[in-house]
């Protein structure tokens, strides 16, 4: 019986993983990857490993999801500011997006 439940949760995990990969909406991809960890923690409880289940639920589905969401918000802020700079007539040239855009000022310096 328990093997059936574990198999069902495992199949749901695979489904959530595929959804996270192919979802166009980053927000739902992040939530879906949190769901993977939540299902994994349920499986750990069924396998009588409460310590690991707690870690998985707290870190995997809690903290990691929050960190991803914060990173997403930062990226959106950076993109909005780059868009604003381009509108202001500056040659932001839309090169590096993402978190590693600390070199944005260097690019602009070269452009100038």
């Amino acid at each position: 019986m328990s093997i059936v439940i574990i198999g069902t949760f495992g199949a749901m995990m695979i489904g959530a993983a595929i959804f996270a990969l192919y979802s166009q909406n980053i927000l739902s991809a992040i939530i879906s990857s949190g769901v993977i960890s939540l299902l994994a923690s349920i499986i750990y409880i069924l396998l009588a490993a409460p310590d690991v289940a707690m870690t998985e639920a707290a870190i995997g589905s809690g903290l990691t999801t929050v960190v991803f969401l914060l990173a997403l918000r930062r990226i959106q802020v950076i993109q909005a500011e780059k868009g604003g700079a381009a509108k202001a007539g500056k040659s932001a040239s839309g090169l590096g997006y993402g978190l590693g855009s600390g070199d944005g000022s260097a690019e602009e310096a070269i452009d100038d």
Partner: protein
Amino acid sequence: MIKKFFTIITVLLFALMVLPLLRQIVPFEELAPVAVAYAEQGPDQLGAANLVTSVIVTYRGLDTLGEVTVLFIATAGVGFLLRRDEEDQLPGEKNTGESTFETAGESALHSPREASELLGSGSMLLFPLLMLFGVYIFMHGHLTPGGGFQGGVVIASSMLLLMLARVSFHLNHLIISLVESLSGFFYVAIGVLGLVLAAGFLDNRILPLGEFGTLFSAGAIPIIYSLVGLKVGTELTNVLGTMRLTRAQQEEDV
């Protein structure tokens, strides 16, 4: 298209490579000799009711120290990268994206809008309970499931609630770094103490084992796990605080 084809071929080849291993898997009928030794001697030797904790903190204590170190390096990396990002961009932003930036700076008091009544009150209600729960988890790591890492994450999530509820809330980085480095220092110091007073590095028997199953038992395990909990909690709080800072708030700081 052709790239996708090659990807599928590669995955199939990997599957073919691992397939023979699948036939060798036999369900474990009995525990490995080391596991048997831990399970039989653990409670008597170390006095911890939660066998998992006695393995994590004492028998495999060095691995846990490694994990804590990995987390520390990751936290330091996040702090370093994001901090530099802000400082590099701020001067450049000031003379380029003036229009967007100024509005953000002007309305900094209102701009990241205040949390709603529901979120604010709920977080204020939950914050002390969550903090207490985190402390409970890592102090009772030798009795119940959980321990330093789990308790630390719960503490960090309670701090996250505080950050969500109060936009103007700022972490006191002095206290955070003080707690973080002191708990790390004492963790290693207790480990070395075990080397001197007991059988080896991170041995918990530097303190009396006490009565099995009570809070003050299992030697140094509760102390070590409390230190790990404080360290993990402050580190993760710091990560969340570093990632939370927006430009407007950064501007407000300066």
